[in-house]
C-alpha cells in the first residue's frame, strides 16, 4: 500500500493545481497559434512547449539543476541568445535599399515613436488597482513597439526579467499580427491618391558601400551610444560577414544553423518564464494591451512621417512605406507592398519598403540602447 501511495504521489495528477493547468493551456494555445495559424511558428512553438514543460509539477525543469533553468540563465539572463540571433539577422539583412535611399532612415526613426509614447501608457496603468509598473518595467514593455523580438527579449532580460515571458509573447504575437494590425491604420491615414504614388527606381549600390556601411554604423554607435553596442555590434558583425564575401561559410552558419539552434533554446528559455505566478495576473493583460498600442502608434508615426517627407521631398515618397519602419522584417515591408498593390496593381513597393524596414531594426536597437542608458 505504501508503494502504491508513493507511486500516486509521483504522478502529475496528484500535484496539479489550477494555475499549472491554466498555464499548460496557455502553452497549448501558443502551440495552436504556431501550428494551425502559423503565427511566428519558429518562436511560438518552442515558447509554447517550454511553457508546458515549465508548469509540470514535480518535473523540476525550472528549478535549480533543471534544463530550462540552465537554458534561461546561460542564454537569456546573460543576453547571449538574443545577441546571437541579432548576428544572424544582420547576416540575413541586405542594406542595399537603405543605402540607395538613405532618407528612409527617418521613417525608421519616426516609427520608434510608438516605443517612447508607450512609456506614458505603462505609467498611467498604475492608476488601475492590481497593476504596478516601475519605470524599468515601462521601458521593457514599451520596446514591444519596436516590433523586434531579439531586441525586446534583450531589453526585458536586462530591465524587467520577471515580465520577460509576457513581453516576448506579446512581441512575437503582434509581429505575427502585422498583416492584420497595420493595413487599417495605413488606409485610415492615407488617401487613395497617396497610396498610388510611384517611387523612383533605386540606384545600384556598390559592394564597397555595403561593406563600409556596417562599419560606419558600428563606429557611430561606439562614439554616441556605447550602451547599444551589444545589439548593434552583433548585428553589424553578421552583416559584415555577409557583405565582405570572404567568409561565406561563417555567414551561412550565422544565417542558418546557428540562428536555428539558438532559436530553439531562446524559445524554450522564454517559455520557461511563463510560470503561473508571473503570467496569470492583471499586469500581463496590461502588457498585451500596451503592446498593441505601441505597435499601432509606431505604424501611424511612420506613415505620417512619410506623408510629411513626401510633401517636402523632390522625389515622390509613397506614405505606405512609412509603416514598414516598425521593423518586423520582412513582414511589414510585404504589408506595405500589398496595400500599395491594392491601390495600383502595377506599383511594387517592396524594395522601397525594405529601406525603412531595415532602418527600423537599427532604430529599435538605438532606442533600446537609449532606454538601457537612461533607465537601466
Amino acid at each position, binding site marked *: 500500500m505504501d508503494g502504491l501511495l508513493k507511486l500516486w504521489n509521483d504522478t502529475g495528477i496528484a500535484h496539479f493545481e489550477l494555475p499549472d493547468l491554466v498555464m499548460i493551456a496557455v502553452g497549448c494555445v501558443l502551440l495552436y497559434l504556431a501550428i494551425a495559424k502559423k503565427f511566428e511558428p519558429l518562436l511560438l512553438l518552442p515558447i509554447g512547449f517550454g511553457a508546458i514543460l515549465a508548469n509540470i509539477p514535480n518535473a523540476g525543469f525550472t528549478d535549480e539543476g533543471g534544463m530550462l533553468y540552465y537554458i534561461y540563465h546561460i542564454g537569456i539572463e546573460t543576453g547571449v541568445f538574443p545577441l546571437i540571433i541579432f548576428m544572424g539577422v544582420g547576416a540575413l539583412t541586405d542594406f542595399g535599399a537603405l543605402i540607395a535611399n538613405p532618407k528612409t532612415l527617418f521613417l525608421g526613426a519616426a516609427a520608434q515613436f510608438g516605443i517612447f509614447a508607450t512609456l506614458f501608457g505603462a505609467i498611467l496603468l498604475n492608476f488601475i488597482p492590481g497593476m504596478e509598473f516601475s519605470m524599468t518595467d515601462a521601458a521593457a514593455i514599451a520596446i514591444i513597439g519596436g516590433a523586434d523580438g531579439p531586441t525586446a527579449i534583450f531589453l526585458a532580460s536586462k530591465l524587467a526579467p520577471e515580465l520577460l515571458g509576457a513581453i516576448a509573447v506579446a512581441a512575437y504575437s503582434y509581429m505575427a499580427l502585422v498583416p492584420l494590425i497595420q493595413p487599417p491604420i495605413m488606409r485610415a491615414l492615407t488617401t487613395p491618391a497617396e497610396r498610388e504614388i510611384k517611387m523612383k527606381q533605386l540606384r545600384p549600390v556598390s*559592394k564597397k558601400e555595403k561593406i563600409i556601411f556596417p562599419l560606419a554604423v558600428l563606429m557611430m554607435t561606439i562614439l554616441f551610444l556605447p550602451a547599444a553596442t551589444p545589439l548593434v555590434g552583433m548585428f553589424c558583425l553578421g552583416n559584415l560577414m555577409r557583405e565582405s564575401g570572404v567568409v561565406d561559410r561563417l555567414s551561412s552558419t550565422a544565417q542558418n544553423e546557428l540562428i536555428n539552434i539558438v532559436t530553439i533554446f531562446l524559445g524554450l528559455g522564454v517559455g520557461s518564464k511563463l510560470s503561473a505566478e508571473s503570467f496569470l495576473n492583471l499586469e500581463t493583460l496590461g502588457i498585451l494591451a500596451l503592446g498593441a498600442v505601441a505597435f499601432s502608434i509606431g505604424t501611424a508615426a511612420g506613415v505620417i512621417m512619410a506623408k510629411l517627407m513626401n510633401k517636402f521631398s523632390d522625389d515622390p515618397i509613397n506614405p505606405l512605406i512609412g509603416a514598414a519602419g516598425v521593423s518586423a522584417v520582412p513582414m511589414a515591408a510585404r504589408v506595405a507592398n500589398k496595400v500599395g498593390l491594392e491601390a495600383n496593381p502595377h506599383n511594387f513597393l517592396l524594395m522601397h519598403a525594405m529601406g525603412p524596414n531595415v532602418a527600423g531594426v537599427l532604430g529599435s536597437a538605438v532606442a533600446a540602447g537609449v532606454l538601457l542608458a537612461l533607465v537601466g
Partner: protein
Amino acid sequence: MDITESLFQAMTLFGLGMTFVFSFLGLLMIAVKLMAKYIPADAPVANRRRPNKKVVDATPSNSEINPQLIAAITSAVQQYRKAETV
C-alpha cells in the same frame, strides 16, 4: 516614486529618446550620402567581359547587324547612363 513624477520622467525619456534616435539616424544618413559621393560605383559586369567576347564574336555579328541599329542602341544606353548619374 509617485505617478506624476514617473510621468515627468517618461516625458524626459520621450523627448531625449526621440531626439537621440532622429539625430543618430540623421547622422547615419549623412554618412551614407557621403559614402555614395566618394565611393566609386562597381564597374559594370558587362564591361569587364567585353574584351574576351569581342575577340570571338566580333567578326560574324558585325556583318549581320545593321550598323545604324547598333548606333541607336549605343546612344540610348549612353543617354540612360547619363540620366542615371545625374
